[in-house]
């Protein structure tokens, strides 16, 4: 057995290596990088394959493991782009990639009815299907009358040492922080985050982990995203979700964004896919999925009464201003929380 294994192993490895060496992407296909959860992006991309006869080759990301992910891959491959389309699950990196010149301006015809505030005026990106930043609290640990209603309530002594936020340097938590810097002003935003830290706020690895800590009763309250909160609600966990600051700042809404990559190998198929993702049908489909992505267009049924954008007050943000505030907010939060 040993001898025959020795003889066949190198042959098998060579065969494997030959099979494993790839070639250039073929025509009639499109390469899409997606930061959106694969559970929900895959069915939509399969629909596109069926409708247009274009094979979709997908590259996914992992927010939970905090890998550097798709944005760094796009930057690193800028001289030899392999992606045609980037389906991002937030806005900030879309703006940053646009500023780096990696994005081909393209305004999909299907996006005409998306409100203007969710589209880039220069046509670099278009938003669709959004999440919002929400407060989540454990109903066994926090009585309803003491539930936080504002992000500033997280700084109150009643919740001291029992709160968590996802790492504010990454993902939607970072976008939220930069948006607060842009909206409240640097000084007030700094005061808020310092108060949060001084109130014993723990930094979780991601929004899902922050949600788990609250849903499992480890901590009392957190800031997270609607899709994470919905998962806990669907699982029947003892939690309640609150849109923060409904009589003040409003809740931050963060749409998905889709971008056409400059110099991608299949520009025509890429445009088709951008058209598809920005379409009304995709927004409606995303709304029906468990991630409860809220449609930006009026007239599309919301995922449920808890997730109706028209029923909540949203934070007014200028994404370019948020991108400008990003470096200062990140540096400050790194110094404040990562020590």
């Amino acid at each position, binding site marked *: 057995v040993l001898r025959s294994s020795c003889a066949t192993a190198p042959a098998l490895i060579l065969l494997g290596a030959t099979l494993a060496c790839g070639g250039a992407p073929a025509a009639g296909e499109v390469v899409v990088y997606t930061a959106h959860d694969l559970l929900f992006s895959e069915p939509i991309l399969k629909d596109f394959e069926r409708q247009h006869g274009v094979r979709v080759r997908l590259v996914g990301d992992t927010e939970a493991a905090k*890998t550097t992910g798709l944005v760094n891959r796009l930057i690193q491959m800028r001289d030899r782009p392999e992606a045609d389309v980037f389906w991002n699950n937030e806005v900030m990196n879309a703006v940053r990639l646009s500023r780096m010149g990696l994005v081909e301006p393209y305004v999909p015809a299907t996006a005409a009815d998306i409100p203007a505030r969710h589209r880039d005026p220069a046509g670099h990106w278009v938003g669709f299907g959004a999440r919002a930043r929400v407060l989540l609290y454990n109903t066994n640990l926090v009585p309803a009358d003491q539930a936080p209603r504002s992000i500033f309530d997280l700084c109150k002594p009643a919740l001291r040492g029992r709160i968590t936020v996802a790492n504010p340097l990454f993902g939607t938590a970072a976008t939220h922080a930069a948006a607060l810097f842009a909206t409240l002003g640097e000084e007030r935003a700094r005061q808020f985050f310092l108060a949060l830290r001084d109130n014993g706020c723990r930094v979780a690895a991601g929004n899902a982990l922050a949600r788990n800590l609250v849903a499992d009763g480890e901590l009392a309250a957190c800031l997270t995203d609607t899709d994470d909160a919905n998962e806990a609600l669907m699982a029947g966990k003892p939690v309640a979700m609150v849109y923060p600051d409904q009589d003040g700042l409003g809740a931050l809404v963060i749409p998905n964004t889709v971008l056409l990559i400059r110099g991608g190998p299949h520009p025509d198929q890429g445009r088709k896919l951008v058209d598809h993702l920005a379409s009304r049908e995709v927004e409606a489909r995303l709304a029906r999925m468990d991630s409860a992505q809220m449609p930006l267009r009026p007239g599309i049924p919301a995922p449920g009464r808890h997730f109706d954008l028209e029923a909540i007050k949203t934070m007014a943000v200028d994404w370019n201003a948020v991108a400008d505030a990003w470096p200062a907010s990140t540096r400050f939060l790194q110094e404040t929380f990562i020590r």
Partner: protein
Amino acid sequence: VKQVRRLLVLLVVAASLAPALAMLVDSLRGPEGWSLRAFGDGLTDARRLGLLGRSVLVALGSSALALVWGIPVGYVAASRSRALGSCVETLSLLPLLLPSLVTALGFVHLFGRAGVVTVWLRSAFDLQAPPFDLYTPAGAAWILSLCNYPCVSILAAQGFRSIDPASVRAARLAAGPWQRLWGFWRPLLMPWLVRGALLVFLLSFADFGVPSALMVNVYPIEVFTELSAYLDVRRAIAVCAPPAAVALLFVVVALGATRAPWPLAGRTGNDLRSKPWAVAAALLVLTLSLGLPLLVLLWTAQGAYGEALRTAGEQVLTSLRIALLGTGMLLAAGGVFAWACRGLLARGQRAAELAVLLPLLVPGAVVGLGILRLVTAGVWPFAAIHPGEALVAYGAAARFVAIPALLLAAAATSLHAAPLDAARVHGAGRWRVFTGILLPLLWPAVAGAATLSFLFCLGELPAAVLVNPPGVMTLPVRLASLLHFGKDALVAALCVILCGLVAAVLLLGLLLTGGPIRPRLRHAYRAD
């Protein structure tokens, strides 16, 4: 010939470090030309030093605990009770299969503030506060040690096997238990244990998943911040410098502390009795490292196995394929390294060991980005095999080359030349000598190296997510994506399937080969 051997060592190390070197060159060569600007201010401010100190503490604690877990497991694995030893060795490798984040979440489920065990203890003993706090550096060290201790146990087992049974009997006759422990076992096992503990130290030092799950800030977050928050690759490389220097210092000190670069090998095989205390300790370790996490996973999976296979069946196969390819690469590199080390003097061997540990100091994301850099620069063979699964396998192999290299080099350098020479004198060709004598003599080490390589390749995430070809996804990437959306049942089911699959493969290997850890030749010769 010595020059050739040195060159081969350099070649293996250079092939593994190629992506990191590409990134280093990039970080030194900015738009303004060559400069050390990225390595300038701020790298050693108080905050960063604090994070670095905590990382060192976590890694040291993890290494110390891994020694506690690994020694009894290694002892039982190497004992003459063949069935028990094989089972313990096989099961002890399985914790490497579970993503460390999953293990951490499993422990939170049991021992967290609202964990099952914590709640029971609080109600049973009427405790006001939880009896333990997992969310501390000590908690992170505890979990990391349970994730990484197989590196110690497999080397400890090799160490126990390398000891001549005659000297064990002589020691029993001549000395009491404590004298034997200090004067006999300690010096003979020290080189193996130090290397095992070093591997655990380096793996724990670079880990980000477990500390972040337990909300413990450690230094690797700084590298991710530069990459993910600032998108600044140059600065990220510079930020890697302080921990790399510290880790290197530990490696040098640890290797310097072991007197002999490689322990002398006695007869392969021994007649160690499986002592009740060792069996009990090994079972306790297996329960903690595998039993409890598996229990939580089985509980959580709740029959989601069918859905798991439908959702990620393709990724399971892809990962197995890539892991096999990576294992092939690692065994080839490890084999070349071992052969080259065999002919070097002690100082050269120690330098080679130090060099081959360097790739473990490079964060996975930097390896992934470095590969992409080599691809875009058109460097052969990276550009030629892009996009392909071979690149993903290479990413894993480049990170973990130290593991098979150390195992194989330890076995190869302790091998006596006499049986090989005798075979050649009797007319055996090179292939016959290799398959008939060399490989059977090295088989325990080869099997151990292959198994560890396979497991590490199977679980590789940060480099894979950057270099996997469009349309191809490995299981860890899928698992991480599912974890994000809180599909706990699916993740648990996939982990259980993976454990079952690999345990079956390992046990099949045992049946086919008569045991990966059992030498086929009972009598080798003592090295000079």
